[in-house]
């Protein structure tokens, strides 16, 4: 089996610094986008004859449109603070996976064409011509960055490699060198409304099936409404929540929480996707086009508020960008932030005491929590600084007795990426994904050894899919990755639901 061929690094510590292995990942390449995929997102179908001029023109344009791009290309002093911070570097040892070296792949070209020193003394400042070889190197290594921003935490100037990697991907897209995985998916969202290309009819059938499952399991009817005009809440959730495990258990959890809270809510078939891969390819226009579907759905359905389901980068786009991309949201109820996270809602209900919770129902689980990178380092939650760390843990601790954090330098702002984010969650990159996950997996193995941790929870669709594929390679069951709302769902006793205790009492009463 191919998976066995991947040599998984044996780390003694989650952040163990590897020896440099030059060129170790030079052959890692995602599949290129076909002309049809490219055109569906507004980019040329194949590499243009004048690609070089266009790439440089785009680079110039980005320098005029994006301050981060400009400042970050200028400001790096090569201090090395970031060099050991990338999970892909730790996992592969390829020096081009060191954040600064990854930036330099583009910075070297920027210097050559846009700076005095690079124009007249290229070899002195590491400037180089833009050639097809360089372009291919970009394609390889800018698709070995999950845009997780861990490097930006440690950079004394806050240089964020994600910004450079997004810019590089956009430059490649406009010259006709796009990536299949991202661009195909964005095209589907533009056309159908979700990453999967799930049509309204199929979505309706799926949700009805889920409603039946919930009723079978709990004896209580819980609705998952679709396209219901006049509902108060529009739920925008990653489409993986409709079909993938353990995501679907999370969706059931949201439905149960909404049910118990007694609010009216709906999913939209037009905006049936929280994910926004426009972020990954650095395309403001594509990101905005996807975000505007949410605005239209909210207006058409006449909702009062918008809540996002568990998804990392989607929450970044929602929390940080949605107001910019698709606002102003003045037609919604001003009592609520726009948008809200499902955990903000659930935590609110837990505090109000509307949920009947039996924590012991999760006693078979010894849990840790994986802070998803885009939630931890690119979004907030609640009103307090750091709410994105505390609210998920608060909810978890309210529904689960056995909780243990992983090593402090691998969680919260220092969290390690799952290895599959940023548009890399595609099978042909499995080698990279496995190696990139190894620091996180080592931190997990450490808490398993120390505290007997059996499961890990996450609030990101990409993390969940990645871990369900990767964890078996590290000695865990694929079901060892959980949705946070799956834990909520486990512990939540629905009104009118007959519990085992009730059943016992009924039996005892009838005996008497």
């Amino acid at each position, binding site marked *: 089996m191919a998976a066995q061929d991947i040599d998984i690094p044996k780390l003694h510590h989650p952040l163990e610094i590897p020896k440099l292995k030059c060129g170790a990942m030079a052959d890692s390449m995602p599949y290129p986008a076909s002309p049809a995929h490219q055109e569906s997102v507004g980019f040329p179908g194949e590499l243009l004859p004048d690609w070089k001029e266009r790439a440089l023109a785009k680079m110039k344009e980005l320098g005029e449109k994006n301050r981060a791009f400009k400042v970050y290309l200028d*400001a790096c002093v090569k201090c090395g603070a970031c060099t050991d911070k990338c999970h892909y570097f730790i996992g592969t040892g390829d020096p081009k996976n060191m954040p600064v070296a990854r930036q330099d792949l583009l910075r070297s070209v920027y210097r050559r064409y846009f700076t005095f020193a690079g124009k007249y003394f290229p070899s002195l400042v*590491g400037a180089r011509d833009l050639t097809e070889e360089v372009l291919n190197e970009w394609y390889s290594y800018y698709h070995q960055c999950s845009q997780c921003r861990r490097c930006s935490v440690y*950079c004394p100037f806050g240089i964020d490699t994600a910004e450079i990697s997004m810019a590089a991907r956009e430059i490649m897209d406009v010259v006709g060198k796009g990536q299949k995985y991202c661009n195909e998916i964005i095209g589907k969202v533009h056309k159908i409304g979700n990453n999967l290309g799930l049509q309204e009819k199929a979505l309706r059938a799926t949700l009805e099936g889920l409603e039946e499952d919930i009723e079978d399991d709990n004896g209580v009817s819980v609705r998952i409404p679709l396209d219901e005009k006049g509902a108060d809440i529009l739920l925008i959730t990653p489409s993986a929540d409709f079909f993938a495990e353990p995501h679907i258990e999370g969706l059931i959890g949201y439905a149960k929480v909404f049910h118990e809270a007694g609010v009216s809510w709906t999913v939209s078939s037009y905006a049936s996707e929280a994910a926004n891969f426009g972020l990954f390819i650095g395309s403001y226009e594509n990101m905005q086009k996807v975000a505007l579907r949410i605005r239209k759905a909210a207006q058409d359905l006449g909702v009062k508020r918008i809540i996002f389901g568990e998804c990392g980068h989607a929450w970044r786009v929602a929390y940080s960008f949605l107001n910019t991309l698709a606002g102003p949201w003045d037609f919604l109820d001003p009592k609520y*932030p726009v948008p809200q996270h499902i955990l903000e809602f659930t935590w609110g209900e837990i505090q109000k005491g509307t949920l009947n919770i039996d924590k012991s129902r999760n006693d078979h689980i010894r849990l840790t929590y994986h802070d998803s990178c885009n939630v931890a380092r690119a979004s907030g939650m609640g009103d307090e*600084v750091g709410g994105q760390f505390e609210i998920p843990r608060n909810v978890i601790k309210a529904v689960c007795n056995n909780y243990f954090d992983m090593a402090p330098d691998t969680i919260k702002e220092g969290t390690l990426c799952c290895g599959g984010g940023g548009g890399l969650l595609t099978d042909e990159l499995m080698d990279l994904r496995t190696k990139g996950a190894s620091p996180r997996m080592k931190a997990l193995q450490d808490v398993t050894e120390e505290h007997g941790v059996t499961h890990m929870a996450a609030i990101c669709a990409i993390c969940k899919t990645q871990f369900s594929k990767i964890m078996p390679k590290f000695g865990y069951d694929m079901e060892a990755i959980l949705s946070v709302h799956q834990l909520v769902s486990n512990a939540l006793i629905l009104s009118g639901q007959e519990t085992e205790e009730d059943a016992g009492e009924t039996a005892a009463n009838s005996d008497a």
Partner: protein
Amino acid sequence: MLGAFFAILYYVATLILVIGVGARIRTYVKVPAPLIIPTQPAPKTRNGVFWRMFREVVFFESLFKSNKWTWVFAYAFHMSMWLVVARHLRYLTQPVWGWVEIVQPFGTYAAFTMILGLLGLWGRRIVVERIRYISNPSDHLMLALIVGIAVSGAMMRFVAHTDIVAVKAFFMGLYTFRIGHFPSDPVLIIHVSLVALLMIIFPISKLLHAPGVFFSPTRNQVDNPREKRHLAPWAEKLEG
């Protein structure tokens, strides 16, 4: 002759430094940050951002989180450099400001911690495999340049004194375009030439990190995207 040379050199170097860095800052101000991207957790108020930036530039907070050795050397170098620069104000002001007098003894001995810090950083650049990999010739030359300035300066203070009264008279004269006598002390000539070189390359080199840090969106943005709509001028045009 020497006087005229250094007078012209310093007028040119000062112009290049001021105009060059000014132009760069103008660019940074002009180029918009289209999206809210502070590295989280981030402060939710302007005040909070001020303190975040303060901790970053006064304590090198992020570098401290990253690597203690690099932090020790970088901190020793930068803070010593500020003391040394402050001390040098006595050669450019008359009467000398009170606080410059107070800084004088610290600024004098800071030369040693500055050189130690620089050598520490240089050592890491040579010894640590990862940092060696990312270093360009310019990174070594920049260290050489600053070490050269520091060592030549320290030599004049601790080994062979130069005619500092004449040097001060020369630089004070430049304010009023009087070109005076410049002592022909080789160490002084090296020191003053290297400083001028540093001023000239400042706007075209990685020394731009100094103004750059203040414009870094991951550090200077307020985390309030849900409360306040943020829109770049070019994005506003897309709205139609």
